[in-house]
């Protein structure tokens, strides 16, 4: 056992000595969490729009004012002719143009209805969908405001309560997501590359003929990274709490336990990758390629899983980060107990077991 | 007394890394066509000196000329005229023998037709003509070493620098290796070689013995042995090493 700890010590020294790598390893979560927490949002705020007002009367200017004060839109261009609409949208300067027909207020009174046309830049389908919905909602709001002034009508009002994230902060989605992504890739890349390096240099053979058992070798390589990744996770969580006011409603111990489970899973994935890769280059490519985009896109980090086609929803179930994100959100934001997360935890543990079994099976022949 | 042409000249060559002095005012010169050995224990400063001469490392001070050019001002002119074989084995393991030859000859500016012609003769001489398409990774160490040397002199440099070329090879291969060195010298290539095998010193025309960054002795093996009244260079070396303590 002493021998084993000596080995762990040597591995830790390797890591600590490489000052630049250490700085990067700790810089990554801090910078990225801060930046993404503040910066990333999938909401539309201050979208640039243009208004083509053929009427310029009281009603259109009231609606315009309402649109621009909604926080969703910013007036980027005031145009006066229909010919300008398409070039303006083509240039990418505005996301949509709102067109009021001539004699707007007059028509509303005389014919009971006037027309607004929204022309949006559909090339970004997601954003187009949103800006049109927002604009429609703002105008709809204006209409019901008008109707309410009619006597005797108190329409059905929906009282909305936003649970778990009252201020609708994007950080609440992006912090757990970034954490899942960073921990997974760092852990998998760290272990797979460092094991592949030993193979490349031929020092793996030296270790294998030493009295250390293969399990001890692998554990010795992984253990320092467990500590490192765990510290990273703690930093991320603390930043989330202090900077973004994320609550930790559930049990802190459970949160730490789950994080440790996820890190171990990521590291065992790294070990599995290293059994497939003979060189560092291959290890880096497998960990980057297999993980970065699939985790980013399928885990629900950016795009909601429920919006995906069914096949991709199934695929997202194969991504460990999917479960981790749900657990973190449940524990931190909803204050759920173990009763609500144990299924996900069992899945993660099962995945980890699978990676370990595969690694052991693939590792064996090398020893003979 | 000597009218031979000097191709390497070091005057007061100093190299410091922080407070550590790796080369402490070295003075020596090497004649054209000579096999010049730089002897010393590990860490004596041999590799540092050799890297300065090859233009891989900047000297802290001193006037050093190789092949007629100053290492400080014209390192690239020097590189045109030398061959180099580093201590660390440095052919591409994922390329074949022929591909390695082609690559290194190519970046020395040789023409393709000439490369083809010469590599055929070279492989034949090494007895590797049937192995031209094999990956370096699949070759035994002895072969790799011989191949690395052949590639280092493939472009007919004036001088070839060999850094511990026989480290880790068996005695038979070492002999064969030295035969190749002799053959290169007979073609007029100056050979500058570092080693910590004292018996190899006997193969050199002249040797320099370094300890702790300083030159302790310089001369032909016979001169050194008679000067120190020793049976072998190994004995000379041990006497010098003891003097220091």
């Amino acid at each position, binding site marked *: 056992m002493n021998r084993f700890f000596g080995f762990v010590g040597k591995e830790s020294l390797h890591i600590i000595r490489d000052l630049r790598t250490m700085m990067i390893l700790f810089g990554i979560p801090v910078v990225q969490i801060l930046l993404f927490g503040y910066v990333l949002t999938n909401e539309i705020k201050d979208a640039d729009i243009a208004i083509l007002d053929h009427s310029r009367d009281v009603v259109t200017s009231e609606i315009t004012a309402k649109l621009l004060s909604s926080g969703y839109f910013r007036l980027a261009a005031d145009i006066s002719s229909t010919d300008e609409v398409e070039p303006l949208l083509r240039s990418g300067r505005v996301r949509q143009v709102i067109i009021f027909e001539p004699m707007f207020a007059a028509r509303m009174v005389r014919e009971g209805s006037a027309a607004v046309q929204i022309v949006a*830049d559909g090339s970004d389908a997601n954003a187009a969908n949103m800006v049109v919905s927002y604009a429609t909602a703002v105008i709809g709001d*204006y209409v019901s405001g008008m109707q309410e002034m009619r006597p005797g009508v108190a329409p059905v009002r929906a009282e909305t309560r936003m649970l778990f994230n009252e201020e609708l902060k994007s950080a609440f989605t992006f912090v757990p997501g970034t954490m899942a992504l960073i921990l997974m890739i760092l852990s998998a890349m760290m272990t797979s590359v460092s094991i592949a390096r030993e193979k490349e240099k031929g020092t793996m053979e030296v270790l294998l003929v030493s009295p250390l058992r293969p399990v001890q070798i692998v554990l010795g390589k992984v253990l320092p990274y467990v500590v490192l990744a765990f510290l990273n996770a703690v930093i991320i969580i603390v930043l989330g709490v202090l900077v973004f006011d994320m609550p930790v409603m559930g049990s802190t111990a459970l949160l730490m336990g789950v994080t440790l489970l996820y890190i171990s899973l990521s590291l065992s994935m790294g070990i599995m990758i290293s059994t497939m890769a003979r060189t560092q280059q291959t290890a880096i490519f497998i960990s980057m390629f297999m993980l970065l985009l699939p985790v980013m896109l399928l885990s629900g980090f950016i795009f909601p899983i429920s919006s995906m086609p069914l096949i991709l929803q199934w695929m997202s179930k194969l991504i460990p980060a999917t479960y981790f994100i749900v657990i973190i959100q449940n524990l931190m934001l909803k204050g759920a107990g173990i009763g609500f997360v144990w299924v996900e935890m069992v899945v993660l543990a099962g995945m980890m077991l699978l990676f370990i079994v595969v690694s052991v099976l693939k590792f064996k022949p090398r020893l003979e | 007394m000597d009218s031979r042409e000097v191709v390497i000249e070091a005057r007061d060559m100093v190299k410091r890394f922080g407070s550590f002095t790796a080369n402490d005012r070295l003075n020596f010169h090497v004649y054209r066509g000579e096999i010049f050995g730089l002897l010393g224990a590990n860490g004596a400063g041999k590799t540092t000196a050799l890297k300065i001469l090859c233009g891989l490392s900047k000297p802290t001070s001193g006037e050093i000329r190789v092949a007629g050019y100053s290492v400080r001002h014209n390192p690239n002119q020097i590189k045109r005229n030398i061959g180099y074989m580093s201590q660390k084995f440095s052919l591409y393991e994922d390329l074949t023998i022929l591909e390695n030859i082609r690559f290194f000859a190519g970046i020395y500016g040789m023409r393709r037709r000439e490369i083809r012609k010469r590599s055929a003769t070279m492989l034949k001489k090494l007895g590797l003509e049937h192995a031209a398409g094999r990956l370096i990774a699949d070759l035994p160490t002895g072969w790799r070493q011989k191949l690395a040397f052949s590639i280092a002199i493939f472009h007919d440099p004036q001088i070839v620098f060999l850094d511990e070329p026989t480290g880790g090879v068996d005695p038979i291969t070492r002999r064969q290796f030295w035969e190749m060195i002799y053959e290169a010298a007979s073609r007029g290539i100056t050979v500058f070689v570092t080693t910590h095998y004292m018996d190899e010193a006997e193969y050199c025309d002249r040797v320099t013995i370094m300890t702790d960054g300083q030159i302790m002795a310089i001369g032909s093996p016979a001169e050194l042995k008679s000067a120190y009244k020793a049976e072998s260079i190994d004995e000379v070396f041990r006497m010098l090493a003891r003097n220091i303590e």
Partner: protein
Amino acid sequence: MRTILFILQKEFLQVFRNRTMLPMILLMPVVQLLVLVNAATFELKSIDMAVLDSDRSLMSHELVSRFEGSPYFKLTHLLSQGAAEAALYDNSADVVLVIPGGFERTMVREGGAPVQLLINAIDGMAAGLIDLYAGNIIAEYGSDMALGGSGDSPAGFGGLSQPDETIGQGKPDRPGGLKPALSPIEVTHRFLFNPTLKYTIYMLPGILVILVTIVGMFLTAINIVREKEQGTIEQINATPILKYQFITGKLIPFLIIALFEFALGLLAAYLLFDMPVLGSLWLVFLITFAFLLVALGLGLLLSAISSNQQQVSFTIFFFLLLFILMSGIFTPTESMPEWAQRINIINPFKYYMRALRMILLKGAGIVDVTRDLLFLGIYGSIALGVAVWRYRKVRA
């Protein structure tokens, strides 16, 4: 020039010899592109709504049926407040609609009544949309009731994926036969450049760029460091090769591989997803070339100043993630705070993404993207220049 050719030849040999790497470089990106692009949508297709109807009246049934009629909501019925909370906790519902007891009575007596929406707001954007969608249906129901209408009108906030559809409240043909509610403002909309709002078209170039950049940047960045680790760099440094020749020789093979990869992905997108290529293909490749100079130049630069592969790959991972997530590929950039937008000036992805999408999807010409092209060109030259400068043949 000849010297550079020899390096080219060697690099290609090394890339194509590695049997594990080859499929990863050539096939994986295309497969990932084609599969993952389908995941990139915010469009809420099915919202899980749990209904807690404590009133169980005709009017409350009518409200619920409005949601049932909407293609966006998938309904389950609950019996107790406790079940409602549990549904939100275990994610079986995104939103709970609570209709209080006495709903119908209040409606009749006061002409209106409140209902409650409990939304799981962890994903703030989705929550906002759910609120919007549900609010629209409820408001429409409310004004229909107020105007005396009751029939089963289709959900009025409308499927936005159909062009030129009326979103505004009230449709004239109502089977109930009661007087049609004419909305005072009729809102119609039209989507230019992509009338059916296929989000894949917008995401394809983005994901393609990410994949091509990963391949190109990692290949170049690992390359020089690997020669350092294996010691072959010393052998090269002892040759008369010039610094710019070395860097160029390292750049071109990966530039070619990345361009090839890009072309392959574009072709696949074109064939399988009807990806439009409205602008000039030359311009597409010109701007891609300029961008790759930046990406690979940065890769080479990082490689020249790093000492091992682990270090360089973490550094690249760091920058890549920042660049990608701030580029506007997935999320809109105008919602970012002012200071972040200023930092984003150094993000090459931002310029490239904007220009590439404009050329492909809107048929923008060279005039429209001159600024981006110029910026990328300058950026690339600087990155490569610094890479040449920082690559040390002689150790101090």
